[in-house]
Structures are given as C-alpha cells and as structure tokens.
C-alpha cells in the first residue's frame, strides 16, 4: 500500500514589503517544492504597493512554474471599499479563492468551489458540513485547535473536502480596527505612514521581563514564537492531512520548504529536520496548540519519530 503524502503550501504573505522584495521573494518560490501558493493582501487594505494586477502577474509567474495558485482575501473587512475589492477577487475566473472571513464565504457560496483560511471558524463537523454544502473544497484548521479535535472531525469529514494545517510560521492570533504598528510610532491609523514597511517580519513586543512575546503586524497580532510542527509529520500522514501550510518570512523560506519536503519524503528524519530548521526560526518555537495545550508551549516528544 502506498501512503499518500500531503502537499505543501505557502500561505499568504502577512507582512508589508516593498514591491521589488515581494517579486524577488515569489521568484525564489517558483523553484521550490511547494505545490500551492496563496497570493494577496490579507491583513490591511491600505497596503497597496502591489496592485491587483501585480498580484495577478505574480500568479501567472507561479502558475507557469507549475504551482497551484489561489487568491487570498482580506481577513477583517469593515468598509464598503473593501467589499468592492473582495467582489473583484471572488469574481475572478482564473484562480480559486481562499476566503478569510464570512463575507468571502458568502460571495463564493453556491457559485464556485472555495478554500477557507485559518481565520474562518470551523470548530466542528456540522460547521464543516454546512460549508461543504456551500462549495468548500478545502479548509484550514483554525490555529487554536488540536490534533484531537481534527481527528474527531476527520471521522465524518465530508467527501471531497481537503484539510490543511498551519505547520510553520508565526501564528496569526488576532485582528483589530486599531493599527498597533502605527500606535507604536504615535501615529493614527489614517496617518500611518506605512511604517509596517520598516519591519519585514513584524514589530517585536516584549514583556517587561524582556521576553519576546508577540509580534505587531499592523492590525494583526502574531505570536513571537514560530509554530513548528515538523516533529508531528507522522500525525499528518496518519490523519490524511492533504496540505501543510508554511507561512512566509523574510529570510530562508525556500530553505524551510526544502526541509519540510525532505522530511515528508523520508530524506531526513524529523529529528534531523528539526535541527536543520533551528537556524531559520527567528525568536523561539512552539507547538502547543496541536497538542491541546497553550499555543506558546513547546511539547517535547520522547517517542522515536522517523519520517515515514
């Protein structure tokens, strides 16, 4: 019996980078082993260095490189102008769409197959079934849910619905009307001066004991620690997870993809892979959510865990 391996995806770029850096980044992704690439601005509608056309240009480039490209939508939509942009994305004829809030789900429901990102709340089988009936093709496990919950939900997973898990990257934890990056510079959001361009991997927030705790990324708050589930590779295969998501960071993303790919294909063990990933992790790692604990926790595993 052959085991079907998960595919690898590259999640949407969560930070704000200069246009040429974004192009250079995705050119470097074209040669990597990721099968799926999510493109588009999901955090702040004021970030417009890349126009919709620039994103489509990148989409074409990656599609030519053999990638399955999806367009990702904004996570927190408040203004009518944001809904207009959303409609254009949902109406596009060339790429499938990753819905990141219920307005995108609504616009796609019954019209064409869609994927949901981790900020769409699917916590139980009945929710999954409702969305499957609406055209859900793949869903991403909300980051705070555990292996145990996913295992139960897979017992009655709707036919044809794929599952994706966020396996590597700083965790997106919260969204606000307020821009915390602007606030840190004593600026109002309406006059933010795009200061999030200064921080390629977000702005570090430390406790008063100097512990790296969270990362401010405009209106989004992330974990300072990088969630890394490399040690759980066997779970993903056993649970028939379809896609493993790696979240972009400014440096070493192609190398991270390579390590995951090699581990999945048994070229390196998970212990070796873990060691190989260490230099690429910016400020500590965690895996607690997957193990049913606090997200920031790092749960060791004493079992022998070879890949495949």
């Amino acid at each position, binding site marked *: 019996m052959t085991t079907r391996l998960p595919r690898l995806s590259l999640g949407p770029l969560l930070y704000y980078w200069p246009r040429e850096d974004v192009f250079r980044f995705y050119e470097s992704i074209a040669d990597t082993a990721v099968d799926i690439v999510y493109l588009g601005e999901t955090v702040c509608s004021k970030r417009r260095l890349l126009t919709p056309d620039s994103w489509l240009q990148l989409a074409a480039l990656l599609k030519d490189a053999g990638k399955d490209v999806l367009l990702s939508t904004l996570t927190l*939509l408040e203004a009518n102008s944001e809904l207009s942009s959303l409609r254009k994305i949902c109406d596009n004829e060339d790429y499938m769409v990753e819905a990141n809030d219920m307005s995108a*789900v609504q616009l796609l429901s019954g019209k064409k197959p869609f994927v949901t990102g981790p900020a769409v*709340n699917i916590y139980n089988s009945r929710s999954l079934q*409702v969305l499957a009936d609406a055209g859900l093709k793949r869903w991403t496990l909300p980051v705070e849910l555990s292996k145990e919950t996913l295992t139960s939900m897979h017992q009655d997973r709707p036919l044809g619905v794929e599952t994706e898990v966020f396996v590597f990257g700083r965790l997106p934890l*919260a969204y606000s009307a*307020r821009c915390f990056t602007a606030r840190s510079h004593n600026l109002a959001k309406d006059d933010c001066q795009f200061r999030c361009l200064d921080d390629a991997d977000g702005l570090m927030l430390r406790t008063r004991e100097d512990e790296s705790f969270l990362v401010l990324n405009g209106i989004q708050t992330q974990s300072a620690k990088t969630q890394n589930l490399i040690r759980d590779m066997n779970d993903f295969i056993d649970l028939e997870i379809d896609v493993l998501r790696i979240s972009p960071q400014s440096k070493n993303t192609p190398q991270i993809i390579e390590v995951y790919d090699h581990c999945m294909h048994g070229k390196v063990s998970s212990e070796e892979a873990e060691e190989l990933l260490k230099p690429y992790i910016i400020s500590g790692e965690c895996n607690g959510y997957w193990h049913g604990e606090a997200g920031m926790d790092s749960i060791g595993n004493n079992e022998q865990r070879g890949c495949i």
Partner: protein
Amino acid sequence: MELVCPAGNLPSLKAAVDHGANAVYMGFKDDTNARHFAGLNFDDRRAQEGIRYAHDKGTKVFVAINTYPQPSGWSRWKKSVDHAAELGVDALILADIGVMDYARGRWPDLRLHLSVQGSATNAEAINFYFQNFAIQRVVLPRVLSLKQVKQVAESSPVPVEVFGFGSLCVMVEGRCMLSSYVTGRSPNTFGACSPANAVSWNETPNGLETRLNNILIDQHAEGESAGYPTVCKGRFNVSGNTYYAIEEPTSLNTLELLPELQSVGVAAIKIEGRQRSPAYVAQVTKVWRDAIDLCERNPQAYHAQSDWMAALEKVSEGSQTTLGAYHRPWQ
C-alpha cells in the same frame, strides 16, 4: 432602540428588568457561553425563575450560546439550545455555524441573533447567516467606526445591535486567540478570556505583578490600580518604550453618540457586563434607560448629561471610558 442588558445571575437580571431594560441576556452554567466564570450564570431553576420575572414585566430574555463547540463538546451545545427553546426564551444569541444549523433545523420558530462572537463585520457576512439560518438580528463587533456602522446598518438584511457600554474588546471578537496562545483556553473554546486559573497576582519589590500562565502582563507601582490581566490590556515593551501597546484598561462608552446611532438605524444597544455586580447592572441600566428615552423624545436636544457620565465613569474599567473604534482617531 431596544436596551439589552446583562444578566450574569438572578439578582442582576432583576436589577436590569427593574431599571428599564427591554431585554436581558443570560447564559447557562458551562462553556457554551462567552462568560463562563465561576459562580456566574443560570441553572435550570434560576433560569425559569428569571424568565418568569422578566416576562411578567414585559422584558424579553435572550440566551447566549455563543462559543464554538468542538466534537467532544457538541452534545452540550445541542442540549443548551434545546434547553433554552424549552424554557421559552425570546431569542438565542449564537456564533457557531454548526450550532446555528442545528437550532434552525430543530427549532425553526425560534428567533436567532448572530452573536458578536460570530465576527460578522460587514453586510455580506451577515447575508450568509441570514440566508442560511434566517437570523433576525446581528450584534456588531466593536471594530467599526460610526460611518462603518451606518454602512452596515443600511445594507444589512437584518437589524443591527451595537455595544453601548462596558469592557472593550480591542480585537475583533470571535477571532482572537491571544488568551489560548497563553493559557490554552480562549473565548471561542472555553467561554473565557484569561481564565482565572491562569491568573496570578504577586507582590514583589518592583510592585504588584499580574501574570497570565507566568507571562508578565503588567507591573503596578504603589498606588496604581491593577487591572485584570488580559493580554490586550497589559504594558509591554516595543522599540524600547514600555506602554499599553494594544489598549489601555478602559471601558467603551457611547452615550454621547446615541443620536447618531439612532439616526443610522441601530435597532438595539447592548450593555456588556454579565460578570459584573447587580449594582453595576442597576446603575448602568438606569442611565441608559434615561438616555434612550430622552434621545427618542428629542434627539436634537439630546446631550450626554454630566451626571450620567459621572455615574458610568465610576463603574468603568480603569475608571476611564473611550468611544473606541466608533471614533476614527482611536483606531
């Protein structure tokens, strides 16, 4: 505009009813609602008594079942929906798609409201819940400016309810995982932000420390009042400055916006605070009843009276209030 007030227990429910609430909202004694705190909420007997008390005085009762069940807890949420329906409540306040689907199928005549925890911030999101589950009202997250509330109210298929007063979530509700990142439990999964078992208060030579699962949330010098340690209201260090990097400990108060909220078509004003005392509920309900009555009689002449504001400041978190996201410069 309907005034919707918090009922964390029977005395609070009575206080809200007696001081002029049009509706009260409550939860059961478990993780099926977003104020899952020890000593709070209603068992069967109290719920029956409360509903009778409210209905006798013409006040509606809503039950919040507004957290997100995972498979291991599914039957508890189902039971809560059935229980509320059998008690004869006036509406359920729900967040989870699966729970809504169940409630709609099992109790088709029961009125459903989309909870703030449902995280619907625009008309298209509301459309989803309206078309699929025939919701009859939506509670808007506290992230919209007044102009945006107006846009949503104008294009929403159902009337909107907004928060008028109380503790302020600075993050969009229903999609904030700061609490579970630190403690393993969040409003979505457990019905509480910063659960009490993870909180510690320590007197140290540097002052009073508040910690959440050992993460230092804040440190208070002598004489400084120490707030409950939620992650979003701590003091942290960013780029060398130590400050309230996310939000000050403060309460939302939109009393002065009441005529605008009325004119943009807001159908109901919600008061936060099921975890607060009956005295809080009485005080806040009374002020808001007077304010809404005055505003409805004569919106042009309305202004937020200073004695109202003073009464509300007294019961506010950190004794200060803000217009929050309604006021664009706050954002």
